[in-house]
C-alpha cells in the first residue's frame, strides 16, 4: 500500500466515525515481528477483563472442502487491513476492525498446498511499492496490498516460480518468507531431494523491489526464519541444524546441530527460531532459541553460535516412553503392546511395529514459542505422543480380495453389493452394500467399524494388521478393479500412526499436550499446564495433541488454540491458569494474532480444522472486549 492509500484509508476511517481513540497497532510480520516473538505490546485486554472477550466479527474465507481442507494460515495486519489466506490459498483483505471484505485474489492454477502465512514487504525507496507476497505450492505471488491485484513491477507479472532456483518441480512452500531489509528470503526444499543440497534445497534472497535473485545458499531449509536486523543475520532452521546466514550475501556464519532427525521421521515441521536475550553468567546475551520436535529447547549465542545452557538442549517433555495407565484396561493393553514392539529412534520400521518416542508430531512444532521480553520468559506448547512404524510383509499367494471373501462376503455378498440388495433397510437379514464405501466413510471410520463392529455386525478384531490393511485397501478400491496381486511377495511401509488406546486417546502416559513457561534467565521451567482436551472426553484434563502456536501480550496473557476440542484459550502468563476460553467453529490449528484497529484491541485467528477429525472450517474470527 502506498503512503497515499494509507492516508485514504485513515481518512475513510475518520469519515465513518470510527476515529481511533488509540493509534492502530499492526501485526505486519508472520508471528508478529522479524524476531518471531509472537508477542504484542498491547495491554487493553488484561487479566481483569479477559473473561469479557466476545466475538467481534467473523469472516467466511470460503473455499471450504468439508472433511478435506485445512487452513494453517496466520494472517497479517498492515495499516489497519487484515490480510489472510483461505483453505485453498485465495488471498483476502478485510477491514481489521469490522471484518468487512475489501478485496479477494484468487491465484491461478491448482492449489492443493498449504501455507502458514504471508509476507509484507514495505517499500524502501520512493520508486518502490509496498508488496504483499505469498506462495502457493512453488509459485510466489506479489500483490498490491491496496487493490489485491498482481503487482506487475515484481518479476514481470507479479508471479515467480521458485522451483527455477532448485532442480525440482515438486517444490511445496509451506512457510512464508522473511523480509530482511531490501531482500525477501525463502527457504526452498524439495521433498525427496533433501540429501542433495546442491540441487534440491536452498535459501534464496530476492530483491523486494523487483524479485530478482540477490543470493543463493545451498542448504536444506524447512522452517520460517528469524531475522536480526541489527546484525543483519538470518537464522534458518533445517531438518537437522540451525544456520546463521549473513543476510547481505548469504554467507554461512555458523551452523549447529539441533534436531538429529533420521530418515524415518522426515518432513517434520520445525519451529521458527525466536530471538531472545538470556543471562549468561549474569551478563545479558543476545541469543536465538529453537524448540524442537524432540521436546528440547536449544539456545545459542547469536554472534558465536555457542550453545548456552545444556548443549543437548533443555528438556521440555518426557524423555522415555511410559505406557498410559489411564484405566486398568488401558494400562494392561498398552504395557502388552509395548512388549511387542522394539523401541528406538532412527531405526527402520519392523513388522511388529517400532515404537518411537517422542513420536511424529510430538515436541514443539511449527507453532514455535511466544516471548515475554520483559520477563525473559518463553511460552511454548509441547505434545507428548508415541508413534508406531510398521513394515507390512505381504507374502506371495495373498490377495486383498481373498481376505474380503473370507471374512465379509458372507454378509455383504461376493461382489460387495450386499446380501439382499433389494432390502437395504433390513441389516438384520444381511449386510448392506459396500460399493462406494470410501465416499460415505473415512478410512478411520472404516477401520473403526471393522475393529469394533456396528449394529448387527460383529467386531473383526481378530484380523491382524496385514489382513486389516488389505481389507481397507480392497474396500476403498473401485468395484471393477482387478485385485490379483497374489503372485509375488511385497512389502509396504504402513503410514506412521500415533499409539492410541481403545478409546482413541494417546497410548503413552499423559500429559499429551502442555503449555509451559520457560524462564530464560534461570534456564528452568516456570510452570506447565495441560493444554487441550479431546471432544470425546471433554473433561479429562490430561492435555491433547496440538498444532499451531501461542501468542503473548504485554498484559501477561497467552492466547493459544491448537487443540482438538476446538477452543481458543487465554492463559495467565504468570501461572498457567486458564482465564478465558471460547468455542471455535473448527479447530484453530494456526497461530493467533493480536492488533489494535479502530481503537480496539483484537485477538484474531483462522479456525481451519481438518485435523484430528472433522470438521474443516473456513472462518477467521476476531475477539475483542465489548465496545
Amino acid at each position, binding site marked *: 500500500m502506498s503512503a497515499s492509500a494509507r492516508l485514504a484509508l485513515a481518512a475513510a476511517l475518520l469519515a465513518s466515525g470510527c476515529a481511533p481513540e488509540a493509534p492502530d497497532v499492526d501485526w505486519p510480520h508472520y508471528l508478529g515481528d522479524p524476531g518471531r516473538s509472537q508477542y504484542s505490546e498491547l495491554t487493553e485486554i488484561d487479566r481483569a477483563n479477559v473473561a469479557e472477550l466476545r466475538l467481534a466479527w467473523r469472516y467466511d474465507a470460503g473455499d471450504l472442502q468439508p472433511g478435506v481442507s485445512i487452513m494453517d494460515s496466520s494472517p497479517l495486519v498492515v495499516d489497519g487491513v487484515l490480510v489472510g489466506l483461505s483453505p485453498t490459498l485465495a488471498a483476502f483483505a478485510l477491514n481489521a476492525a469490522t471484518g468487512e471484505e475489501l478485496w479477494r485474489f484468487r491465484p491461478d492454477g491448482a492449489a492443493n498446498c498449504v501455507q502458514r502465512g504471508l509476507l509484507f514487504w514495505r517499500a524502501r525507496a520512493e520508486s518502490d511499492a509496498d508488496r504483499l507476497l505469498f506462495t502457493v505450492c512453488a509459485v510466489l505471488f506479489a500483490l498490491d496490498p491496496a487493490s489485491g491485484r498482481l503487482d506487475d513491477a515484481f518479476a514481470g507479472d507479479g508471479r515467480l516460480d521458485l522451483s527455477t532456483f532448485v532442480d525440482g518441480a515438486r517444490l511445496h512452500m509451506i512457510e512464508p518468507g522473511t523480509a530482511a531489509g531490501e531482500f525477501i528470503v525463502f527457504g526452498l526444499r524439495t521433498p525427496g531431494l533433501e540429501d542433495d543440497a546442491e540441487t534440491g534445497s536452498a535459501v534464496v534472497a530476492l530483491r523486494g523491489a523487483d524479485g530478482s535473485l540477490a543470493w543463493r545458499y545451498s542448504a536444506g531449509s524447512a522452517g520460517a526464519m528469524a531475522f536480526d536486523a541489527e546484525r543483519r543475520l538470518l537464522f534458518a532452521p533445517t531438518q537437522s541444524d540451525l544456520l546463521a546466514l549473513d543476510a547481505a550475501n548469504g554467507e554461512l556464519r555458523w551452523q549447529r546441530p539441533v534436531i538429529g532427525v533420521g530418515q524415518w521421521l522426515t518432513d517434520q515441521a520445525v519451529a521458527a527460531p525466536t530471538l531472545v536475550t538470556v543471562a549468561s553468567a549474569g551478563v545479558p546475551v543476545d541469543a536465538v532459541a529453537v524448540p524442537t520436535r524432540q521436546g528440547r529447547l536449544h539456545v545459542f549465542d547469536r554472534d558465536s553460535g555457542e550453545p548456552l545452557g545444556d548443549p543437548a538442549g533443555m528438556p521440555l517433555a518426557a524423555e522415555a516412553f511410559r505406557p498410559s495407565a489411564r484405566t486398568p484396561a488401558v494400562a494392561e493393553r498398552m504395557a502388552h503392546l509395548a512388549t511387542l514392539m522394539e523401541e528406538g529412534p532412527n531405526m527402520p520400521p519392523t513388522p511388529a511395529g517400532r515404537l518411537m518416542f517422542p513420536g511424529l508430531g510430538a515436541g514443539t512444532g511449527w507453532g514455535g514459542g511466544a516471548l515475554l521480553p520483559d520477563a525473559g520468559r518463553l511460552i511454548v506448547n509441547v505434545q507428548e505422543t508415541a508413534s508406531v512404524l510398521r513394515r507390512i510383509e505381504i507374502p506371495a499367494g495373498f490377495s486383498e480380495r481373498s481376505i474380503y471373501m473370507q471374512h465379509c462376503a458372507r454378509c455383504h455378498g461376493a461382489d460387495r453389493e450386499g446380501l439382499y440388495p433389494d432390502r437395504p433397510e433390513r441389516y*438384520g437379514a444381511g449386510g448392506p452394500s459396500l460399493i462406494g464405501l470410501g465416499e460415505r466413510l473415512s478410512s478411520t471410520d472404516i477401520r473403526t467399524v471393522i475393529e469394533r463392529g456396528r449394529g448387527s455386525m460383529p467386531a473383526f478384531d481378530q484380523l491382524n494388521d496385514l489382513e486389516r490393511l488389505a481389507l481397507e485397501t480392497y474396500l476403498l478400491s473401485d468395484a471393477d478393479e482387478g485385485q490379483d496381486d497374489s503372485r509375488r511377495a511385497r512389502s509396504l511401509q504402513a503410514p506412521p500412526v500415533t499409539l492410541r488406546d481403545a478409546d482413541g486417546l494417546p497410548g503413552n502416559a499423559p500429559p499429551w499436550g502442555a503449555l509451559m513457561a520457560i524462564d530464560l534467565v534461570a534456564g528452568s521451567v516456570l510452570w506447565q499446564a495441560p493444554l487441550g482436551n479431546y*471432544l470425546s472426553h471433554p473433561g479429562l484434563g490430561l492435555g491433547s495433541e496440538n498444532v499451531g502456536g501461542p501468542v503473548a501480550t504485554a498484559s501477561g496473557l497467552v492466547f493459544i488454540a491448537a487443540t482438538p476440542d476446538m477452543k481458543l484459550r487465554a492463559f495467565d502468563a504468570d501461572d498457567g491458569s486458564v482465564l478465558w476460553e471460547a468455542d471455535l467453529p473448527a479447530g484453530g490449528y494456526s497461530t493467533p494474532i493480536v492488533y489494535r484497529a479502530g481503537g480496539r484491541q483484537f485477538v484474531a485467528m483462522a479456525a481451519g480444522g481438518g485435523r484430528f477429525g472433522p*470438521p*474443516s472450517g473456513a472462518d477467521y474470527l476476531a475477539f475483542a472486549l465489548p465496545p
Partner: protein
Amino acid sequence: MKPSPVFACGIGLALAGALLAGCAPPADPAAGEWRHHGGDLASSKYSPLDQIDAANFPELEVAWRWESADKRLAGAYDTGNYTATPLMVGGKVYAATSHGQVAALDAATGEQLWLYDPRSWARELPTQLPRRTRGVEYWTDGEAERIFVATMGKQLVSIDAATGQPDAAFGDGGIVDLAGDLGVDDRVMAHISHSAPPIIVRDTVVVGSKIHDYVSENRNPPGHIRAYDVRTGALKWRFHTIPQEGEPYTETWGNDSWKVQGNTNVWTMLAADEELGYVYLPTSTPTNDYYGGERPGDNVYAESLVCVDVETGKPVWHFQTVHHGIWDYDIASAPNLVDIVVDGRPIKAVAQVSKTAFTYVFDRATGEPVWPIEERPVPPSTVPGEVLSPTQPFPTKPPPFDRQGASEDDLIDFTPELRAEALEIASHFRLGPIFEPLIVEGDGGKVGTLVVPGAGGGASFPGASVDPETGILYVDSFTSPTGISVVSTADNVTQSQSEPGTSDFAYEVKYQPAAGPQGLPLLKPPYRRLTAIDLNLGEHVWQVPQGPGPKDHPAIKHLNLGLLGSGHSAGAVAEGGILVTKTILVDFLPTMDERRQASGGHLRALDKATGQVLAEVAVDRSLHGAPMTYAHEGRQYIAVAGGGGREKAELVAFALPEGGY
C-alpha cells in the same frame, strides 16, 4: 370433497390478514406454527392451514432449501438418510441435523440465522443403527424460548432460541449428561444413545432412549425414562420401565431378571397432555427381542403404553400390548391424543397404533379401553425354556389395519404356477395367526415361523396422524412377513456372538429368508396400505394400497392388477409420515431408479375422504422426513427433510408461487 379454488383462496387471504394484523394468539396452532415434532403435544401431525389444497397442489414450487449443516462434519460417522422434522415458531424454523446440530432458519427464505453444534459426533460411537437425530423440542414461558435436543452423544441440550447459544443456567453450561441418572453403573454405555426429540410438558423435559438390540450379554442399559427441570436441568424423576427393588411388577420378571435385563426403552416419539399433566410412553421389547427364557413372566412395562404423571414420574395407568414379547413388537410410534365421541359419550382418548397392526384406544385419563380388549388364548412355545403368556390382548375394535398372521389362504395365487411355488416355499415355515410362537430352527422340519405383520410391518415409527376435527386417524402400514427362528447359542455363531457359547442367552434369533416366488412377495397384496379409521365409531372408513408394488413384475404384468402397495421388497422403508391439513393429506413415496437408488421424490396430496391420490409434485431430492407445514407472512409452506447418505442432505420447503395464493 374438494373445496373450490375460490373458496380456498378466500380462506387463505383471511388467514393472511389475521397474521398481518398480529391478532393470532401465539400458542394457537391456527397461527400456523408447528411447535412440536408431531405438530402438537398430542402428536396429531395436523394443521388447520388450508392455503395449499388439492386444486393448487400441482403448482407447488420449492420456496427454499437449506443444506444440512452436517456437510461441515464430513468425515464424522455416517448418518444415512436425513429424516429430522423441523419446527416453526415465531417466523423461525428450528431444524436438527442428523448429527444433532441445531439451526434456526428464516421461515420465509431458509436463511440460516444461527447454528449450534453440541459436538455429539465426536463422542462415543453409538452401536445401534440408524444413527441419526430425528428432531428437536420447543419450550417457552412466554418470554424465554428454548430449543432442546437429545443427541446420539448422550447430551440433553438447551439452546436459547434468541442467540443459538446453550442456556448456561441449564445443566452444565447448557448440557445435561444423559450417561448419568440412569440408576445403573455396570452397563455398556455405547449401547445407549438418543435419537427421538424429548417432549416438554409442564416445564418438565421427558427423555427416552435408543438402545442396541443385538447383544449377547445381560446388563444392557435399561430404558428408564428421565425427566428434568426445563430451566435448571435438575433431574425431577426417573421412571423405571423395568421395575426395580420394591416397586410393583418385579414379579413379572422371573429369575430376578429385572436386575440384569435392559432395553424396554422408548426409542420413538412421545405424546403428552398438558392439561392432565400426563406423558404417554410407548415402550419396546426387553433385551433379546426373540427369546425370553431368561426373563419368565409378563415383563411389565415392556411393549406397553404407560401413562405417567409428569410431576411425580409415577405411573397412572398402563396397558401391555404384548405379554412376554418375543416378536420384536415394540410400540414404534407416539400415540395420538384425540377427543372423540363414542355412542354420544365424549371421551378424551389416546389411540396407539402398533407393529401388531392393532389400534389400542383408551380413555387417556383412566386407561379404560374405549372398546373391550379381550385376552384370548394363544399357543405355547416349543422352544426349550421359553414360557409364553397363555393369552394375548386382542382389541375388539377397531379392526386391525394390516394382515395379521398367515395361512395357506394368504399365499399369492396370481397364477396357479405362482401359487404352487408359494406353497412350496411356505411349506418350510410354520404358519399361523398373530402371536404364533417362534421355533428352534429345524423343529418339525420347519426353518422358522413366518411372522406377520413382522417386526418391520404394521405401523412403524411414523405412526398415525389424526384430524382432531373429525376424530379420523390415518395410519400407514406394511405387510412384512419375516422368517424367524431361534438357534441355540451353545453351538451357533449368531448375530451377537462370533464364538459359540459366549452369550448370556440360551437362544438367539436367526432370520430365515422368506422371499416369495420369482422375487414376488409370498403373501397376497396389498404390501403397504393407508387406512383411515373413525375413532368415534371404531371402524375403518377406507383402506387403499400405497404405491404400485410389483404390479409390473414380468410374471404378473399381464394380469393388470392395479396398485399392490410398495412393500419393503419394493425399496420402501418406514419413514416420513402423514401430514393432515384442513384440506388434504400429504405424504410421499420413494421413487427408485433401475439401480434401486432413490431418484428424487414425489410429494403427494391425498383425498381425506377416500385416500385417492389427487395431485403430485416431483422434486429432485429423495424425501425421508415427516412432512410438516406452517404459515408465515400469509404463505403456507410444507417442509420435508431429504437426501443424506450419498445425496446432499437438505430441508426442502414447498409453497405456492408468490402472488399466486
